[in-house]
C-alpha cells in the first residue's frame, strides 16, 4: 500500500494535507465559536475570483487569490463595524461580491479552464512543488501566530467586550485573525478545493464540540479529526480515483455522524440503566 508514497505528487499531497489539517481546525475553532461559520465560504468565493484573475493575467493563481482574499477579509472587518448589529451581513455582502467578480472573470476567460476545476474541487495530483513551498512556509507562520495569540483569541471568542475591557488589543487581533483566515483558505484550496475549504474549518470543530471537556481539549480533538479525514481521504481518493476535496469532506461528515451516533447510544444505554435500577 505504501508504494504510492514513492510518487512525488503523493508525498507533496500528504505533506500539504497534514499542514492544512492543523491549520484549518485551529482557525476553525475560533470561527465556529464566534459564530462566523459562513466567513470561510465568503472568502473562498473571493479566492476563486483571485484564481480566475491569476489565470487570466498569467500570474501564479495562489498569490493572486491570496491578495484577493486578504483584501476581502479587511473589507469584511471594516463592514462588520458599519453593521455592528448585523455582523453576518458583512460576510454576505463580500460573498455576493466575490461570486459576482469570479463569474465575470471566468466569462472573460471565454472557456472554463481545466486548471480552474482543480482549484474548485481540489485535486491532489496537481499540488506542485511551488505550491508545497508556499503551503509549508505560510502554513508554519500561521500556526506559530495562532499558538502565540491562542489565549487572546480564546478570550475574544468567549466574550469580546470583556476582553476589550481587560485590556486585550481586540481590534488589532481581530484584524490579524481575519488575515489568517484568508491566508488559510488560499493555502487549503489546492487540497480540498475552493468550494469545500470552509467545511474543513467547520466539520472537525463541530465534531470536537460534541466531546470536548475543555477548550484545549476541543482544539486538540478537532485537529485529530481533521488529520484522520485528510490522510484517509487522500489515500481513498487516490485508490478510488475520486476528487480529494469531496472525499475528505465526506469522511469528516462521517466522523461527525459516528460521534453523534455514539453519544446518542450512550445516552440511551444510560437511560436504560437508570430505569432498570429504579
Amino acid at each position, binding site marked *: 500500500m505504501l508504494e504510492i508514497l514513492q510518487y512525488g505528487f503523493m508525498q507533496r499531497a500528504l505533506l500539504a494535507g497534514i499542514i492544512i489539517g492543523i491549520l484549518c481546525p485551529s482557525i476553525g475553532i475560533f470561527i465556529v*465559536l464566534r*459564530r462566523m461559520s459562513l466567513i470561510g465560504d465568503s472568502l473562498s468565493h473571493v479566492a476563486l475570483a483571485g484564481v480566475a484573475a491569476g489565470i487570466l493575467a498569467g500570474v501564479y493563481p495562489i498569490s493572486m487569490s491570496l491578495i484577493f482574499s486578504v483584501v476581502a477579509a479587511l473589507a469584511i472587518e471594516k463592514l462588520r463595524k458599519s453593521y455592528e448589529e448585523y455582523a453576518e451581513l458583512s460576510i454576505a455582502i463580500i460573498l455576493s461580491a466575490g461570486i459576482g467578480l469570479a463569474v465575470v472573470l471566468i466569462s472573460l476567460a471565454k472557456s472554463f479552464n481545466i486548471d480552474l476545476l482543480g482549484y474548485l474541487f481540489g485535486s491532489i495530483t496537481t499540488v506542485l512543488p511551488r505550491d508545497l513551498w508556499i503551503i509549508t512556509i505560510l502554513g508554519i507562520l500561521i500556526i506559530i501566530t495562532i499558538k*502565540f*495569540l*491562542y*489565549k*487572546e483569541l*480564546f*478570550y475574544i*471568542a*468567549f*466574550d469580546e*467586550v*470583556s*476582553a*476589550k*475591557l*481587560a*485590556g*486585550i488589543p481586540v481590534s488589532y487581533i481581530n484584524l490579524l485573525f481575519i488575515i489568517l483566515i484568508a491566508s488559510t483558505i488560499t493555502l487549503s484550496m489546492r487540497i480540498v478545493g475552493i468550494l469545500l475549504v470552509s467545511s474543513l474549518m467547520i466539520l472537525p470543530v463541530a465534531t*470536537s*464540540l460534541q466531546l*470536548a*471537556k*475543555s*477548550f*484545549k*481539549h*476541543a482544539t486538540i480533538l478537532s485537529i485529530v479529526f481533521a488529520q484522520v479525514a485528510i490522510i484517509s481521504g487522500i489515500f481513498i481518493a487516490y485508490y478510488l480515483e475520486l476528487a480529494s476535496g469531496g472525499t475528505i469532506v465526506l469522511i469528516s461528515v462521517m466522523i461527525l455522524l459516528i460521534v453523534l451516533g455514539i453519544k446518542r447510544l450512550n445516552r440511551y444505554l444510560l437511560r436504560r440503566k437508570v430505569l432498570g435500577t429504579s
Partner: protein
Amino acid sequence: MDKIVKIRNLFFGYDEKMVLEDINLDIHRGDYLGIVGPNGSAKSTLLKSILGLLKPQRGSIEIFGRSIKDFKEWGRIGYVSQKATSFNSSFPATVEEVVSANLFPKIGLFKSIKKEHKERVFETLKVVGMENYRRRLIGNLSGGQQQKVFIAKTLISEPEIIFLDEPTVGIDVESQGEFYDLLERFNKDMNITIVMVSHDIGVITEKVSRIACMGDKKLLVHNKCCRVPFSEALTRFYGDRMNMLVHRH
C-alpha cells in the same frame, strides 16, 4: 476623599434621541454605589459610557484621573456583565480557563500560562468557593455558580473598582443572597469600590452605601441612601402605584 470616577455634564444619545442629559457623578474610593431606575432609563448606557464602550456626544469622564479616551490601565477595572447576554453557554471552556482569561493582559502577548498562574486561579476560585468546580465546563453550571466564576475572573486581575451590570438577572434568590454577601466582603474587607446597576431597588437600598437614581434622562438622587427622601424620587420615576417592600430576617 479619593475620587476614582468623575463625570461632568455628560450627554449621550442613540441616533438623535438623547437618553442621558447633563449627568454629573463622582465615585469615591471604597464606595458601594447602586445605580437604579426603571427599564429603559439608560442605566446600562451610563455604565457603558463610563467604561468607554460608548462614546458620549458631550461631557467628560475621568477614571483614575485620566480621561476615558486615553485610559490604558484596564487591569485596575473589573466588569461583570449580565450573565444571560454575555456568553454562549455551550462554549467549551472550563471554569479554570475562563477565570485565567483576565490574567492574559498581565501575562502578555505571545506568552503562555504557567504553573504560578494556575495556582492564582485556584486561590481566586477559593475566595468565591468554586475551587472544586475548576475543571467543569462553564456551561454545565447553574446561573448562580456561573456568576461566581465571572466574579472570580474579575477579581483575579486585582481591580480597584468593579462595575456590575444587573449581575443577578436570571439567578435564584438564594444564590443572589450569596452573591451580594460576596460583594459586601470585597467592598469592606478588600476595599474594592463597587458600582452596580440594578433594577432590584429592595436589595440595592439594603446593601449599598450610596445610590444614584436614573430616570427621565437624568440622574436625580445621588447621595447616601439613608439620608435621601428616597420614596419621593422613586415615585417620580416609577409612578405613584409603586410600593417598596423591604423584608428583613
